């Protein structure tokens, strides 16, 4: 009950924005430039087969593959940096520097390398989601309690014991925070990748409709994209609740 009331203000606000938008769009009355929310929804319904069957699956696949690769490489690198100081010194600055690269500017290179296949889009997604995951896992590992580590050593724990029983569980909350950021970024990554070169996908479809001055059809896949982002985010929240259920006891 409390949960619903805590969301009620944001629902109320969104309703007002949509209402104002609807009225403004109808008064302006140039739907090819400024479509009303109702027009977008109608267009979404009209394009449902095309969007859901042809364009949603490749985008969702790009996001899933990209995130998985980011999680695997990012966590591995974070663990390597945590366990060996020279690796941290070698990679940490590069990691930061990689974030100053404008990914959008780099994306055409990926198209050049990987062509119009799904891998050019995956590459953009990985590049954009890799950073938050690596940094959050690394910080999480570093946040493990030093006193607890020493206590475990007095109990005769090996470094392997300490890693599995202390460092990994300590890094989990931070990992999930990073994953939440990465999930929202992954949607952006996939969409950018598709703008630059694709044969299918929500980002690709949205851009194609722009060239046809069908602005309602530009918005329709964007609504879907953000829905995908929200669904993935909620999925992460559910996983987080499951793995960190002890947090409810504090």
């Amino acid at each position: 009950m409390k949960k619903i009331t805590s969301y009620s203000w944001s629902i109320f606000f969104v309703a007002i924005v949509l209402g104002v938008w609807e009225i403004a769009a109808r008064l302006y009355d140039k739907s090819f430039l400024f479509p009303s929310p109702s027009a977008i929804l109608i267009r979404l319904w009209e394009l449902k087969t095309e969007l859901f069957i042809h364009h949603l699956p490749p985008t969702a696949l790009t996001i899933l593959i990209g995130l998985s690769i980011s999680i695997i490489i990012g966590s591995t690198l974070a663990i390597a940096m945590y366990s060996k100081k020279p690796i941290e010194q070698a990679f940490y600055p590069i990691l930061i520097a990689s974030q100053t690269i404008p990914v959008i500017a780099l994306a055409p290179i990926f198209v050049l390398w990987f062509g119009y296949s799904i891998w050019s889009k995956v590459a953009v997604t990985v590049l954009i989601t890799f950073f938050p995951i690596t940094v959050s896992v690394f910080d999480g590992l570093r946040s493990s309690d030093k006193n607890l580590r020493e206590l475990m050593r007095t109990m005769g724990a090996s470094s392997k014991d300490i890693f599995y029983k202390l460092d990994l569980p300590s890094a989990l909350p931070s990992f999930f925070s990073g994953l939440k950021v990465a999930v929202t970024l992954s949607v952006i990554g996939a969409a950018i990748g598709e703008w630059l070169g694709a044969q299918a996908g929500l980002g690709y479809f949205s851009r194609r409709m722009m060239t046809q001055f069908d602005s309602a059809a530009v918005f329709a896949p964007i609504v879907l994209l953000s829905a995908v982002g929200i669904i993935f985010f909620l999925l992460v929240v559910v996983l987080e609740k499951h793995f960190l259920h002890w947090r409810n006891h504090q």
Partner: protein
Amino acid sequence: MLLLRKAFALTLEPALDNASGGKWTYDGFRPYYAPASHREVVFLCEFFEEMRSGMNMVNTVLEFTNVSFHYQATKASKPIVIFDQVDWHVQEGEFISIIGPSGYGKSTLFRLITGLENPDSGEISLNGEVATKRLGKVGYMPQQDLLMPWRTILENVQLPVELQGRKLSSDEIIQLLADFGLAGEENAYPGNLSGGMRQRVSFLRTILTGSNILLLDEPFSALDAITRLTMQEWLIDQWQKLDKTIVFITHDIDEALFLSDRIFVLAEKPVQTIREVVVPLSRPRTTRDLARPELMELKEQLISELRSEKRL
């Protein structure tokens, strides 16, 4: 003299069958016994030797021999000597308290005993043997409870057993938890428990290391006064049941006097000798015992000792 003779005869009681025929005489200063034969002399020598080793049955479980230790923050900084050729020992079954101002090596002492640090020179013996690798051999209970928030109480308590590659059954642990006044809490998380309860879990975890020596580092300092008193009485209770040797760090002199057989004072920098104070109280004790004049005097003396050192 008669009394002495009686005492002697009494100690000899089991041996009287073999040792007899000698004569008691008195030379004006002290009584002595003149054995009748060479056979009797040999027997008596053996008998006293046996008695002496019998007295040594009170084993030394922890011993420092000539231990020196220093800290050095960085290579460039000046080394700070904490211990300078310290000799020290604790006997089996004793309750020992260590008091001293902060920064005088109480925690370092524990780090040396547990093996987290090694002495620059000298030897540390555990249970009569020189132990160069001590990690995993001594039970250590830290100041904060340091329970893992992601583990249930049952899993937390299991940790030291798990690290030794063994496993206790849930039933065994549930029974132990009940003995520690934690019945029904096995599936709770540390976040659900009060400070006193968490300390008891932490203590149980320390016991399950299986070590006969338990080092407790100011375990009750974060508790409120009433809880602390309850926990002190509870600890004494457990100590008497468990047959363990306890070394207890505290900065509370009352706590030290109430709990321990002997108190060791670390009040030099660097520490060269650890002064020993025997607490003149029998057990069981009550808090009222602490108000006795001789204890008050002892307390005053300890306070002034710690204070004068602090000023330096």
